[in-house]
């Protein structure tokens, strides 16, 4: 009897904790979601409605329509982030392999060079990067975003992959060496398949990093929609239509949907990647 009571108590405070944390983490999102379903114009009506009396999809029509075409920005973001993820995984796992597994005289120096870059605030590199991208003729192109974002991922990505490689058993690799496998195929056919879970974590983080990148995306797009990614597009909408919060909210909801779904599906790997960065320092 006492045991049953204790268990029930545990459930009660557990549910209490979940409710309080949900209120903190989700209330702002709930507000945006209901605003997006209000008939445009009624979002300013008082008293404030916490459950819209008339659910309307009008804002979604507007935000997907010819005036905004949020789907373009979402597509751009997907192209940029996918390309960055692939590029960063390749570059970072090669360098991480050198650092974690190969005999190399300048390991410490390399590691310092890589980690120092991770401390650089983006504001320090933005102006020359803008000039550089302009001189490469890549302003307002997705390539102008992809290349720098791969580089921006190098410090944390190399770190994560090196930590992962360092934890892998060495016997398969030794066997491959003895058999005379050339180094690249050892890397590609022996190490990479073993490192798949680590690659996955690092990949999700690289994707999310470039998905949210704003300063460069703003600077490179020059205010025109061709190469706008989601963050720039949403900011531009919200500044141009400051009083149309139902429209802006619909845009926010649509642009968040894909990443939130992705993060929830890959939750385990996200948490692994983030904690590896903090714990295995």
């Amino acid at each position, binding site marked *: 009897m006492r045991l049953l009571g204790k268990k029930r108590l545990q459930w009660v405070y557990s549910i209490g904790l979940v409710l309080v944390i949900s209120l903190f983490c989700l209330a702002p999102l709930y507000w945006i979601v209901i605003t997006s379903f209000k008939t445009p114009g009624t979002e300013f009506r008082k008293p404030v409605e916490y459950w819209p009396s008339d659910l309307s999809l009008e804002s979604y029509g507007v935000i997907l329509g010819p005036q905004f075409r949020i789907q373009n920005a979402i597509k751009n973001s997907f192209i940029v982030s996918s390309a960055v993820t692939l590029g960063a995984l390749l570059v970072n796992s090669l360098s991480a392999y050198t650092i974690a597994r190969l005999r190399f005289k300048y390991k410490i120096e390399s590691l310092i060079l890589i980690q120092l870059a991770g401390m650089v605030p983006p*504001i320090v590199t933005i*102006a020359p990067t803008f000039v550089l991208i302009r001189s490469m003729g890549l302003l307002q192109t997705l390539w102008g975003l992809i290349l720098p974002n791969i*580089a921006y991922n190098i410090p944390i990505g190399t770190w994560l992959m090196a930590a992962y490689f360092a934890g892998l058993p060495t016997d398969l690799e030794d066997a491959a060496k003895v058999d005379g496998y050339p180094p690249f195929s050892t890397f590609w056919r022996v190490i990479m398949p073993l490192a798949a879970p680590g690659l996955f974590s690092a990949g999700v983080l690289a994707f999310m990093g470039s998905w949210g990148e704003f300063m460069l995306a703003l600077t490179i797009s020059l205010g025109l929609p061709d190469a706008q990614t989601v963050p720039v597009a*949403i900011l531009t909408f919200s500044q141009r239509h400051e009083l149309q919060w139902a429209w802006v909210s619909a845009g926010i909801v649509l642009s968040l949907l894909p990443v939130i779904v992705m993060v929830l599906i890959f939750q385990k790997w996200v948490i692994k990647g983030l904690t590896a*960065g903090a714990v295995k320092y």
Partner: protein
Amino acid sequence: MRLRPNLREPAVALLFIIPAFIGLAVFFYYPIGQTVIFSLFDLDHTTDWMNAPFVGLNNYADVIRSRQFWLSLRFTLIFSIVSVFLQFWIGLAMAMATFAVVPRLRGVLRAIIIIPWAIPQIIQAAMWKWLYNTDVGLIGDVLVRTGLVDSPPLFLADPRLAMGAVIFAYVWKTASVTSIFLMGGLAMVPDHLTDAAKVDGARAWMRFWRITVPLIMPTILVTLLFRTRDALRAFDIIYGLTGGGPGTQTEVLSSFAYKFYFTFVEYGLGSAYALITFVLVMALSLLYLKRIQPHLRFRS
């Protein structure tokens, strides 16, 4: 046959690390060098420093002499200290909650905590602008309905409130990632230690300070390092939420430098601002790393 791959190993190592070095050189080290050069010239509406007047350290002198620099430095520091403090305690509370709830709710709770992390900072800025709307915003309305205030405050127009509003919006997102970092540390605290203390009659608060905190100290320090570094260079949330306003009240070093670059088109002064931010971040990181080192040796 066995020797050949070994002989080539250093060469292969170099080959493998070269792509990363090229990336770093082009998008980190070259731009840093260029920014240093920019900061020594008077670059009014031009980036052509070779034909611009060399002014030595005058840009830095101008920056240090301006009142605005000290104000934005002050807010950068307030912003970082307050937000890291809040993120840490909220994040730790949420992380501990995931271990305190019944196992069946653990996954749900983690999923809820991770969601704010997934939202790009600039999109949060747009969200919070609406949440802080004076007439019909969620925050103001809730405050009025609960009777805490008589009329909704001007969150983003009142100079003092604007600072708090920016900090809170930033904390909302970053508490999420802080919490995930700390979960990693807490997961490594062995249950039997806290259980033993429980049997010995140690109160929850004592168990927390005497057992949990010392055990996760390395994770705490690394988390604080990452979070402080991130806060010192915050840009998106300020650019999107207040644009540095009202006036220049919520301007931080990064947002101010960005204005010098792309609004006033004064690359020389902007570069000086940016480099001062850099020095600040570096100095703090090194200080921290020095502090962390003994704990790291302990771990390995």
